[in-house]
C-alpha cells in the first residue's frame, strides 16, 4: 500500500495542473460566486430589504467581485506561473532590446560554462567512470613496492604472486597478466597485435563474461597445456568477419596455432600501463610449485572479499610481504606490497592535473559570473527608472527580484546551450591532439552526466551572476529615483563600491590562474632545455617482433640480428644502425649485479642498474659520447674476453673517484663470468627528461647469454627518418615473412610523447584558461572604470573648474584602477600560496612559490589592468568643465 503524498505536494501539483484548465475553472468560480450572491440576496429579501438594497448589501459583504476573483486565482496558482511566463516574454524583449549587452553576457557565460563542461567530460570519462566489470569497486591493483629505492609500483614476481594468492584471506581471488603482443601474419607481412598473457582466472576475477564461447578453464595456464586464446570483439569483427562459428577455429600468433575458446565482450579490455587495448588473451603458462621470486613479471589484480576494506587488505598484504622477506631474503628483502583501487591505478596520472584544471575552470566561471553581474549592475543603473515605475505601480520587491532572476536564467541557459557546443568542440580537439590512441580516454565524451552537470552549473550561474544585481537593483528608493535623475542617487554609490569589490575579486582569481600557468610554462621551458644526453635528430627507433617459435634460442636470434643489422646499414639514407634492449624513454629494465671489490654485498644494498644489450654502433646512432676507454667492437663476441661499458652515474656510484675502465663486475658470479669494463659513456635521461640519471650497464650483443632478449633498433638517417619506415619493413619481411616491425617512431617523437606531451597538455590548457581569465578581468575593470568616469563627470568638471589639470584628473582615475588591481594581485598571491602544494606534483625545476614567476605575472597583470584603466581615464581628462557643470 502506498502512502498518500503530503498535502503540500498534492496542493502544488493541483496548482500547476490548474494552469491547463484555466477557462473552465474561471467559469466555475463565476458560477459559484453568482450562486452565493443569489442565496445571500434571497436571505436579505426575506429579512425585508428592497431588492436593490439586498443586492448592494450582498455585494458589499462579498468584498468586491474583482478582488475575490484575484485572490482566488492567486490561490489556484494561476498567478505564479502566469507571471513567470510573462516575465520570460518581458525578459526576452528586454534582452533583444540590448543586443550588445545580451551578446557579451551570453558569450562570457558560454565560455565559462563550456570550459567547465569540457573539463568535466574528462573527469567524468576517467576519474568517475565506473570500470566495465562486475562490482568494480572491489577490484584492486597490487604492486610490489621497494620504498627505499623509490620503486613504488613495480610488477610482481610469479613466486610472490603465488604466495600472495595462497596466503591471503582478504581477496576472493587474484589474477596476473602481462603484455604478450604477438605477430599475426597478414599476407606477405606480419603485424604486431596487442595482447595479454593472463592467468586462467583473469576473466573470473574481473567478472567479465565472454559474449561467445567460454573463458579460460583452470589448468589452461599450466606449462604444456594446449594453446588456447580468447579474441576481442573488434578482432572477431575485423579479421574473422563476425564468423558465428568462430569457437574452435584457430588463430596463428607468433607462428603458432591457438584454438579460439571464445570472443570476449567489448568491456573486458584491460591494458598494461600505457599500452594499447588487448586484442587477444592467451594463458600465462607457469608452474606455481617452482615459480621464482627474482624476475618481476606480472601485473596483479585482486577481487576483495565482500566486506573487506582496502585498508584491511593492505594491512594483511604487508604482513604477508614481511613473511616473504624472511623466507626469500635474497629476492624479497626490502620489498612490500602496495594496494590501490583499480580505477585509481588506471587514472593515477591524470588525477592531479584534472583536479587542478577543474579548479581553474571553476575560477573562470566565477570570473565570467562576476563580469555578467557587473554588466547587469551597470544596466541596473540605467534601468532604475523603469524599476521604480514598476514598483510604484504595485510590484513588490520579491516580484522585481523574480523578474530580474528570470532574465539571468534566460542568459545562463542560452549560454549553457552555446557552452555545450563549445565544450563538444574543445573535447574533440583535445582528444585528437593529445590522446588520439590512448584507450584510457575512450570514455571521454559529452554524455548525460556531463549534460546534467552543465545544467547544474547553469543554475549556479543564474544565482552567482543574477542574485546580487537583482537585490541591489530592486532595492531602489522609490521617491528618490523618480525624483532625481538616474545619475546621483544614493544606491549607485553602494552599487559602485560593490562593483569595485567584484572586480578586485576577479583580478585576484585571474592572478591565481596566471601564476599557475606561469609555473607550468616555466616547467615546460625547463624541461625543454634539459639535455637528454643523446642527439635525437634524424634517429628512427622501432621494435622487431620475432616469433619465439622460429627463434627459440638466443644463438638463432643473434644470427638473425647479425643479418638484419647488415641489411639495415646497407639501406640508402642510413648512416648507422644499432640494436638495443630498450631505447631511452621507452622503459627501464633493471638488473642486479656485483663488483669484484664487493662480490657479496649485504642483501639490502645490492647494486642495481639498467641492463642494455647493444650492438657496437648503438652509441654512434644516438651520439652518446665516449668519456674513457672504447666502444664495443665487432670482435667482442662469444669466445673473446667478456666486456661491458658503464655510464658515468654507475661509475660514480660504485667506483667513486676511480677510473672504471679495467674494473670487473658480474651479473651473478656463481652463474655468469666476470666481465671487464672497457668503456665509460655519458649519462642519458633514460626514464624521461624530468628523471634523475640512473646507473646503466651495456653488454655487447654478440656475447651470450642475454639476461633477456633485446628487440629494439635505432638507425641514424641522413634525411627524415620516417621516410625509411617502409624500406625497413621490406627489409624485415625479405628476411622472415613472419617477423614484424612495431611502433616506428623518431627519437624526437619518443621524447615528445614520453616526456613533453603531458606537460604541454597541462600548460596549454591552464594557459588558455588563464588567458580567458585575463581578458575577462580586463573587460571587468574597463567596464567599472568607464562607468565610474561617467558617474563622476560633474565632480571631475568641478575639480577642473577649480583648477585641477589634466594630469591631476588622469592620476585620480588611474589611482582608482591601480587600487583595484593592486588589491586583486595581492589577494591572488595569497591564494596562490595557499594552493601551492597542489601544483607541486606538476612542476619541474621550479618552486610552486617561485618569486620570479609571481613578480612577472603580477607585473603583467598590473600593466594590463592599468592600460584598461587608461582609456576611460583619458576620456575623463577631456571633460569640458562648463558642459559638465551645466549638466548637473
Amino acid at each position, binding site marked *: 500500500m502506498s502512502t498518500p503524498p503530503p*498535502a503540500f505536494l498534492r496542493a502544488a501539483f*493541483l496548482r500547476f495542473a490548474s494552469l491547463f484548465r484555466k477557462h473552465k475553472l474561471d467559469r466555475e468560480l463565476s458560477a459559484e460566486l453568482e450562486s452565493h450572491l443569489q*442565496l445571500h440576496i434571497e436571505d436579505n429579501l426575506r429579512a425585508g430589504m428592497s431588492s436593490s438594497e439586498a443586492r448592494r448589501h450582498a455585494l458589499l459583504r*462579498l468584498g468586491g467581485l474583482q478582488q475575490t476573483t484575484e485572490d482566488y486565482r492567486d490561490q489556484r496558482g494561476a498567478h505564479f506561473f502566469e507571471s513567470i511566463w510573462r516575465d520570460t516574454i518581458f525578459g526576452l524583449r528586454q534582452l533583444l532590446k540590448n543586443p550588445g549587452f545580451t551578446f557579451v553576457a551570453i558569450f562570457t557565460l558560454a565560455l565559462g560554462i563550456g570550459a567547465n563542461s569540457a573539463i568535466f567530460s574528462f573527469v567524468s570519462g576517467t576519474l568517475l567512470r565506473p570500470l566495465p566489470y562486475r562490482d568494480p569497486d572491489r577490484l584492486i591493483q597490487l604492486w610490489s613496492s621497494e620504498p627505499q629505492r623509490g620503486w613504488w609500483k613495480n610488477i610482481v614476481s610469479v613466486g610472490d604472486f603465488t604466495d600472495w594468492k595462497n596466503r591471503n584471506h582478504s581477496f576472493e581471488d587474484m589474477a596476473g597478466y602481462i603484455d604478450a603482443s604477438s605477430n599475426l601474419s597478414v599476407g606477405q607481412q606480419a603485424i604486431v597485435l596487442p595482447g595479454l598473457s593472463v592467468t586462467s582466472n583473469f576473466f573470473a576475477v574481473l567478472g567479465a563474461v565472454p559474449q561467445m564461447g567460454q573463458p579460460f578453464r583452470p589448468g589452461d595456464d599450466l606449462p604444456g597445456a594446449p594453446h588456447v586464446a580468447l579474441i576481442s570483439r573488434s578482432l572477431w569483427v575485423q579479421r574473422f568477419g563476425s564468423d558465428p562459428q568462430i569457437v574452435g577455429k584457430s588463430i596463428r600468433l607468433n607462428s603458432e596455432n591457438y584454438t579460439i575458446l571464445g570472443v570476449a565482450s567489448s568491456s573486458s579490455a584491460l591494458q598494461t600501463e600505457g599500452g594499447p587495448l588487448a586484442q587477444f588473451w592467451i594463458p600465462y603458462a607457469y608452474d606455481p610449485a617452482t615459480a621464482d621470486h627474482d624476475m618481476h613479471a606480472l601485473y596483479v589484480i585482486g577481487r576483495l572479499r565482500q566486506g573487506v576494506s582496502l585498508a584491511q587488505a593492505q594491512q594483511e598484504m604487508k604482513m604477508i610481504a614481511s613473511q616473504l622477506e624472511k623466507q626469500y631474503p635474497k629476492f624479497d628483502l626490502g620489498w612490500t606490497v602496495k594496494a590501490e583501487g583499480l580505477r585509481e591505478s588506471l587514472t593515477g596520472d591524470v588525477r592531479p592535473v584534472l583536479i587542478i584544471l577543474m579548479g581553474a575552470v571553476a575560477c573562470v566561471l566565477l570570473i565570467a559570473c562576476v563580469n555578467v553581474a557587473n554588466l547587469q549592475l551597470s544596466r541596473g543603473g540605467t534601468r532604475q527608472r523603469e524599476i521604480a515605475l514598476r514598483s510604484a505601480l504595485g510590484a513588490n520587491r520579491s516580484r522585481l527580484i523574480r523578474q530580474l532572476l528570470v532574465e539571468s536564467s534566460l542568459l545562463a541557459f542560452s549560454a549553457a546551450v552555446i557552452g555545450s557546443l563549445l565544450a563538444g568542440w574543445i573535447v574533440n580537439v583535445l582528444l585528437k591532439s593529445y590522446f588520439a590512441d590512448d584507450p584510457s580516454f575512450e570514455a571521454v565524451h559529452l554524455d548525460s552526466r556531463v549534460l546534467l552537470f552543465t545544467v547544474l552549473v547553469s543554475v549556479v550561474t543564474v544565482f552567482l551572476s543574477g542574485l546580487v544585481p537583482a537585490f541591489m537593483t530592486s532595492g531602489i528608493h522609490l521617491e528618490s529615483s523618480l525624483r532625481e535623475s538616474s545619475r546621483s542617487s544614493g544606491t549607485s554609490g553602494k552599487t559602485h563600491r560593490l562593483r569595485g569589490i567584484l572586480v578586485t575579486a576577479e583580478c585576484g582569481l585571474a592572478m591565481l590562474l596566471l601564476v599557475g600557468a606561469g609555473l607550468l610554462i616555466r616547467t615546460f621551458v625547463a624541461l625543454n632545455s634539459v639535455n637528454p644526453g643523446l642527439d635525437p635528430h634524424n634517429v628512427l627507433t622501432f621494435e622487431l617482433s620475432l616469433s619465439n617459435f622460429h627463434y627459440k634460442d638466443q644463438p638463432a636470434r643473434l644470427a638473425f640480428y647479425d643479418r638484419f643489422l647488415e641489411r639495415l646499414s646497407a639501406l640508402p639514407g642510413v648512416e648507422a644502425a644499432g640494436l638495443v634492449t630498450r631505447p631511452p624513454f621507452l622503459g627501464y629494465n633493471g638488473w642486479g649485479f656485483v663488483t669484484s671489490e664487493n662480490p657479496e654485498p649485504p642483501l639490502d644494498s645490492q647494486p642495481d642498474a639498467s641492463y642494455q644489450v647493444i650492438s657496437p654502433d648503438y652509441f654512434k646512432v644516438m651520439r652518446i659520447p665516449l668519456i674513457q676507454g672504447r666502444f664495443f667492437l665487432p670482435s667482442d663476441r662469444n669466445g673473446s674476453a667478456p666486456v661491458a661499458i658503464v655510464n658515468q652515474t654507475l661509475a660514480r656510484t660504485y667506483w667513486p673517484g676511480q677510473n672504471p675502465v679495467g674494473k670487473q663486475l658480474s651479473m651473478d658470479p656463481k652463474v655468469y663470468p666476470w666481465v671487464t669494463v672497457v668503456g665509460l659513456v655519458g649519462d642519458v635521461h633514460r626514464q624521461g627528461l624530468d628523471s634523475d640519471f640512473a646507473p646503466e650497464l651495456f653488454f655487447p650483443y654478440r656475447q651470450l647469454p642475454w639476461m633477456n632478449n633485446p628487440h629494439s633498433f635505432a638507425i641514424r638517417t641522413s634525411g627524415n627518418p620516417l621516410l625509411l619506415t617502409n624500406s625497413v619493413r621490406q627489409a624485415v619481411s625479405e628476411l622472415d615473412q613472419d617477423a614484424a616491425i612495431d611502433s616506428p617512431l623518431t627519437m624526437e617523437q619518443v621524447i615528445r610523447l614520453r616526456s613533453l606531451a603531458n606537460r604541454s597538455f597541462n600548460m596549454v590548457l591552464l594557459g588558455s584558461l588563464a588567458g580567458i581569465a585575463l581578458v575577462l578581468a580586463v573587460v571587468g575593470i574597463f567596464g567599472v572604470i568607464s562607468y565610474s568616469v561617467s558617474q563622476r563627470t560633474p565632480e571631475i568638471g568641478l575639480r577642473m573648474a577649480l583648477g585641477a589639470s589634466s594630469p591631476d584628473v588622469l592620476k585620480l582615475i588611474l589611482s582608482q584602477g591601480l587600487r583595484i588591481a593592486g588589491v586583486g594581485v595581492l589577494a591572488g598571491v595569497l591564494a596562490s600560496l595557499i594552493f601551492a602544494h597542489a601544483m607541486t606534483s606538476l612542476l619541474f625545476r621550479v618552486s610552486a612559490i617561485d618569486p620570479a614567476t609571481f613578480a612577472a605575472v603580477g607585473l603583467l597583470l598590473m600593466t594590463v589592468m592599468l592600460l584598461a584603466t587608461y582609456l576611460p581615464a583619458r576620456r575623463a581628462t577631456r571633460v569640458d568643465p562648463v558642459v559638465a557643470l551645466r549638466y548637473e
Partner: protein
Amino acid sequence: MGEKKDVLQGTLALMVLKTLEALGPLHGYGIARRIEQTSGDLLSLNYGTLYPALLKLEQEGFISSEWGFSDNNRKAKYYKLTRAGHRQLERETREWNETAAILQRFLAPSEER
C-alpha cells in the same frame, strides 16, 4: 458590546472544517453564515476571503466539492469533509487547544509562591 473581531489568520480553515463536520455538506454561503452565527455575530467575515480558503483546503485534500441544489432549489457548490479532513480537524483542534491552554496559563493571574 465591543466592536466585531476580524477572523484570525489560519483559524478560518479550522472553522470551515468544524462547520462541515457539524453540519455535513454545505455551500460557501452557508458556511459563511454558520461561522458568523456560531460566533454570536461577534466575528465579521469578509465572504470573499472564504473562497480562496475553500480552494486551498480542497487542493490539500481536506474537503471535496460537487455541485448540488439548495433547499429552495438554487444551484450551488457543496463542500464536504474528506477522511483526511477529519484527521486534519482532529489534529488542528488538539493543537489549538494546547496553544489556548498555554496562553491561558500565561494570562491567568500569577499565583504567589
